[in-house]
């Protein structure tokens, strides 16, 4: 009998498959993972502390730099929290514009998630480039509304920074008409692809009760079959006016998490289409004092970001700065179960599992 010893491999923080500066200390028995420890903090910038010394308006661009693949969603959650704290009503047109950009952002973010995931499976950059083709169109739309392509800083306390230019709606119409065809194309290429199925079906199964117990959210929770989407469960903004479905997985494996994202893109297109049709005329920004001093009090506002429940907890104290600024980061909390999901699988599967959780390190570490 040959005596074997477990071997420890340090994976990251500089590694393309960790999607950022994320490190895993993985212990193997032969090829099989017996232990895994995630190590965070390589991108910790102390944003929560930093924002305590900024005014409420100055904080908006910092929220862009949390989950930079979904800056619009971060803007959205933060301004919503401030509006709730200060009791500000926002114009109807701004509500619709927010929903339109937030859903476009969900599509753009899921495209990266799915493309990156397929990259991790070894489909090296071919599907990724397909996804980038469509994401580019969304970025063009965002550039029209705010001049930026990654860190938008589009939303303001009381509305949005600019009204849309005249060329926006025709371009958006073209996009929502084309997008379902592109999603069909991904399905054709990938959903029945034998390698994708072999690599992801049954891998990293997350049971529903464990997902709930570990506070998983977003596609990770829904992939496990839990029909929980804040847009429906606790509607914010004007989400109660739209018809859409909440796709859920059956098994909670890596494939289901991928599948849920593809289906959510279809639903987002549906929401954008309805919001476009109902878009009212009018102001896009309420009158808000230049230096906002929200009253004493606290507020927790949450939205369904592409990665899950994104919450902002603010404590106001009559001053222009928040007394406490806290982000409930879905990417971090979704990693709670990474060790459980990976044990018993091989290294290549761990990469697929990590890819299916879809983390953004700027949000994990803040």
């Amino acid at each position, binding site marked *: 009998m040959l005596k074997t010893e477990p071997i420890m491999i340090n994976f990251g923080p500089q590694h393309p498959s960790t999607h950022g500066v994320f490190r895993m200390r993985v212990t193997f028995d032969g090829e099989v993972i017996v232990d895994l420890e995630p190590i965070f*903090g390589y991108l910790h910038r102390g944003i929560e*502390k930093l924002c305590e010394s900024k005014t409420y308006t100055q904080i908006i661009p910092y929220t862009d730099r949390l989950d930079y693949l979904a800056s619009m969603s971060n803007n959205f959650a933060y301004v919503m929290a401030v509006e709730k704290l200060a009791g500000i009503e926002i114009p109807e047109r701004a509500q619709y514009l927010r929903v339109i950009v937030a859903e476009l952002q969900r599509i753009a973010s899921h495209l990266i998630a799915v493309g990156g995931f397929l990259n991790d499976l070894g489909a090296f950059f071919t599907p990724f480039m397909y996804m980038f083709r469509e994401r580019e169109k969304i970025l063009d739309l965002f550039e029209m509304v705010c001049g930026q392509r990654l860190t938008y800083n589009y939303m303001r306390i009381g509305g949005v920074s600019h009204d849309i230019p005249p060329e926006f709606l025709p371009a958006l119409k073209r996009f929502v008409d084309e997008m379902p065809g592109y999603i069909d194309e991904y399905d054709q290429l990938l959903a029945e692809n034998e390698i994708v199925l072999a690599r992801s079906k049954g891998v990293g199964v997350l049971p529903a009760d464990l997902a709930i117990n570990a506070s998983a959210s977003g596609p990770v929770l829904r992939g496990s079959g839990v029909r929980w989407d804040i847009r429906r469960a*606790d509607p914010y903004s004007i989400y109660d006016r739209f018809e859409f479905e909440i796709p859920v997985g059956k098994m909670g494996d890596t494939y289901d998490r991928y599948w849920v994202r593809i289906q959510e893109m279809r639903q987002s297109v549906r929401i954008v289409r309805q919001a476009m049709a109902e878009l009212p005329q009018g102001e896009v920004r309420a009158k808000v004092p230049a230096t906002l001093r929200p009253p004493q009090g606290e507020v927790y506002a949450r939205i369904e970001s592409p990665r899950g*429940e994104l919450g902002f907890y603010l404590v106001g104290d009559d001053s222009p700065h928040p007394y406490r600024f806290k982000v409930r980061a879905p990417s971090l909390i979704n990693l709670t179960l990474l060790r459980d999901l990976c044990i018993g699988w091989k290294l290549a599967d761990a990469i697929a599992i990590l890819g299916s959780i879809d983390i953004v390190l700027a949000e994990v570490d803040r």
Partner: protein
Amino acid sequence: MTTPLSPAQIARQIGEVLPEAVTDFNESAIFVSSEALFEVARFLKENLDLDYLASITAVDFFEHFELIYHLTSIKYNHSVVLKTRCYERENPTLPSLVSLWRGADLQEREVYDLMGVSFSGHPNLKRIFLWSGFKGHPLRKDYPNA
């Protein structure tokens, strides 16, 4: 819509089983003593189906730390906000809720790292974002700003 359960009613329900656990309540939250936190959390989880611990937040108010737990029931779509206060400043310690909700794991480590509140019974309580030799806890209000 997620229905926030009435803190007054929940406080009464807790009081029937755990007298003296609830110290106060207002229109949005229930305050419990730090000694009773674990028992109250278990009671809420088991009797009110609060199966989802959405978020843990710590706030430094100088004379005490306030810990805020946002609990949600995915099954019935209702929510409770649980708060507790820790008056100790040198070595504040609270019971860990990881054995009830795994979701508390990384969040309690974050509170420990940045606010310096310890959690007894946590399986792996160490700094999460900062390195182990780091002095101080940056989110405390007396931590010097650069």
